[in-house]
């Protein structure tokens, strides 16, 4: 069905392509600003928001500090409640477990409630290879799946589409995979949602196996929690006979009362709502009510790798609210696809390298996909210091190349700069050379900045990265330190 991110180009290349898509730019700017403003309004209503953030961070941090114990408690509680617990080291193991459960019931289709973990492991594609169709039931996921597209946002996977595009996708594709869209379909949001509801209803009523993720897993009661807005999740979690939940091991919290700050932080941060419309919780099997066979797949897939990183482990606190995406000026302009992962934006820029390492070029480009403006840290409900982790992951990228036989041009430049900056005499010489260049540019320049200062026009080579769109002032003939020496810090009244 939907595509995969495998083989995506590194961020700067993918970003350049996305920046050229004017429709995408408009859709993204409109959507992120709308949800950003809404979030800011409802967050401002909470007087103790900063305290709430601290307690949210504390709950997750405490769970991570003693993760092994909490997971064992969770497993025991789930088994006691009648669930079957599986452990999956990686995507392949997790997909194989889900496929074998579906096969054991002779199912050739499953319904899915939106789940980041199953997207991360490429479950839909793996099931398709086994002849099992996976139907996404979240409206935005459905749009992405029908459009044979890729998700571009954690919360709103189809954020890059406008309603006219969605109508076109529904008209073109719904009939191929089930109930067709009505002939008189308009692009009114309510009409589009109505068509999706009709299309999905037959799938909910037919499916015998459902697949979900979980927003939280409470260790001491063995309770899984799904938070959603449309009710499709509740349909998946209650109608089919068999439920398989794929849960990242970082989703565990110790106790039921730990949910309190999390369920207050999440809806305001993600959808800008005071409370989310549907909160479903379930613990194993209840005879005669809901799924009679419940499987829980506890997924690692790089999480213990991230946990071992002293600076980066805080990224595992993430509750996938997507607030950082909505305020990120980089995400706003390039969208989610450029990040080449189901986890885009600032959190994706740290989570992907932490989960996977930085050995491939695409992942290694992600820590640099940020201007380090810090807006992401400011909104993060669990206080993940994303800018600091970005810098630390940049260091991981640089360190992974320290053994290279031929160093990158950038490494050579940085070492030269560091050498120059380690001694003020060397810096003085470099500034004299720069002042000389400035005099030459000043003499020949046809460009001047407002105020009259000579500017370099368009420069060749690597400098073209700058001067392609920006004028660059010519270096002044005299540096500050030379002026200070010549005029005794201006005390002798010397001119500039």
């Amino acid at each position, binding site marked *: 069905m939907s595509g995969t991110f495998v083989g995506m180009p590194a*961020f*700067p290349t993918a*970003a*350049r392509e996305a*920046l050229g898509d004017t429709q995408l730019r408009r859709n993204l700017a409109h959507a992120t600003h709308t949800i950003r403003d809404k979030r800011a309004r409802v967050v401002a209503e909470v007087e103790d928001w900063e305290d709430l953030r601290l307690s949210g961070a504390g709950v997750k941090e405490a769970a991570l500090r003693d993760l092994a114990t909490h997971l064992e408690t969770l497993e025991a509680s789930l088994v006691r409640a009648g669930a079957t617990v599986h452990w999956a080291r990686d995507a392949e193991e997790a997909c194989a477990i889900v496929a074998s459960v579906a096969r054991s019931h002779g199912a050739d289709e499953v319904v899915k409630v939106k789940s980041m973990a199953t997207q991360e492991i490429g479950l839909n594609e793996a099931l398709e290879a086994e002849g099992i169709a996976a139907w996404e039931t979240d409206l935005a996921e459905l749009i992405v799946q029908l459009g044979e597209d890729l998700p571009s946002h954690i919360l709103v996977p189809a954020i890059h589409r406008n309603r006219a595009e969605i109508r076109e996708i529904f008209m073109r594709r719904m009939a191929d995979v089930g109930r067709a869209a009505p002939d008189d379909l308009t692009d009114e949001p309510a009409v589009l949602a109505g068509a999706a509801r009709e299309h999905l209803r037959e799938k909910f009523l037919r499916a015998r196996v459902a697949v979900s993720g979980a927003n939280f897993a409470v260790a001491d009661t063995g309770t899984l929690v799904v938070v959603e807005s449309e009710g499709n999740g509740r349909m998946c979690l209650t109608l089919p006979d068999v439920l398989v939940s794929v849960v990242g091991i970082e989703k565990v919290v110790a106790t039921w009362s730990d949910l309190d700050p999390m369920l207050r932080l999440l809806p305001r941060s993600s959808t800008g709502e005071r409370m989310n419309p549907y909160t479903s919780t379930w613990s194993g099997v209840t005879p005669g009510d809901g799924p009679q066979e419940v499987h829980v797949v506890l997924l690692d897939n790089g999480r213990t790798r991230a946990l071992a990183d002293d600076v980066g482990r805080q990224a595992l606190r993430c509750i996938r609210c997507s607030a950082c995406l909505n305020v990120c*000026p*980089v995400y706003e*302009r390039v969208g989610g696809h450029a990040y080449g992962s189901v986890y885009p934006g600032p959190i994706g820029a740290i989570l992907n390298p932490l989960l996977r390492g930085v050995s491939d070029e695409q992942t290694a480009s992600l820590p*640099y996909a*940020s*201007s*380090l*403006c*810090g*807006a992401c*840290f400011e909104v993060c409900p669990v206080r993940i210091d994303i800018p600091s982790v970005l*810098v630390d992951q*940049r*260091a*991981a990228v*640089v360190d992974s190349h320290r053994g290279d036989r031929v160093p990158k041009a*950038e*490494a050579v430049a*940085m*070492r030269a*700069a*560091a050498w*120059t*900056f*380690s*001694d*003020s005499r060397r*810096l003085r010489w*470099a*500034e004299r050379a*720069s002042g000389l260049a400035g005099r030459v540019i000043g003499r020949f320049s046809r*460009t001047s900045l*407002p*105020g009259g200062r000579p*500017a370099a026009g368009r420069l060749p080579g690597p400098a073209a990265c*700058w001067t*392609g*769109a*920006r*004028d*660059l*002032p010519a270096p002044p003939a*005299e*540096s*500050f*330190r030379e*002026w*200070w*020496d010549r005029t005794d*810090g*201006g005390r002798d*009244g*010397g*001119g*500039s």
Partner: protein
Amino acid sequence: MPTVRVALQVTCVNDAMFPDTGKAVVRLLRRLGVDVDFPSAQTCCGQPMVNTGYLDEAVPVVRAFVDAFAGYDAIVTPSGSCAGSARHQHSIVADRSGDPRLAAAVAETAPRTYELSELLVDVLGVTDVGAYFPHRVTYHPTCHSLRMLGVGDRPLRLLENVRGIDLVELPNATECCGFGGTFALKNADTSVAMGGDKARHVQDTGAEVLVAGDNSCLMHIGGMLSRQRAGVRVMHLAEVLAATEDSESKAPGPVVGARAEDLP
């Protein structure tokens, strides 16, 4: 005015590219009765290396910083970014070096490093610096001043007290301009897209001058405004605060920066 030994950390960018900003800081502080020193052994705060991931390379640069500024009561820098680097990143570099003496020296200098508006408001206790600048001005709060340091409204309080100024609000002011150090080169297309939007917002204000507390960001936004022939010039906060009626009357053009000959 309290007597404090103040050292100017002029920043490598200002030293080599924008010396007028350093001169303006000197002139401004002298006018306020502070005799500022310029330790000539200084080089750079190390942020270009740190933010690009070259932490080992940053070690000798941070060492040069703490050596140059040891013993001063306050270190002032006309850059939110460099002050942020000294306060929040030097300890990371020192920890990585494994040198306890460097870590101890960083612990001495880091809390004493102030961005210009912080020094003026918090240390010297002034918000009216006696400046005169009769122009329509808009102010961009650079990200590191705003979020890494939390300078809040200090720069605006200083600007509001400048005589003759017509201060207008910048739309979407708190959004990053897209400079981001090496981000401007590594992701040049995205950086330019962000800078383009910032330049448009600046033009929407009808201001003659865009002011900020960091020349790196101004070099980026100003470079775009200049290429677009937008008719807006950029100036560092220090240069506006250093301007007086005297310097205005000597100005050849409509807008004057801090000129060395105006120094007392």
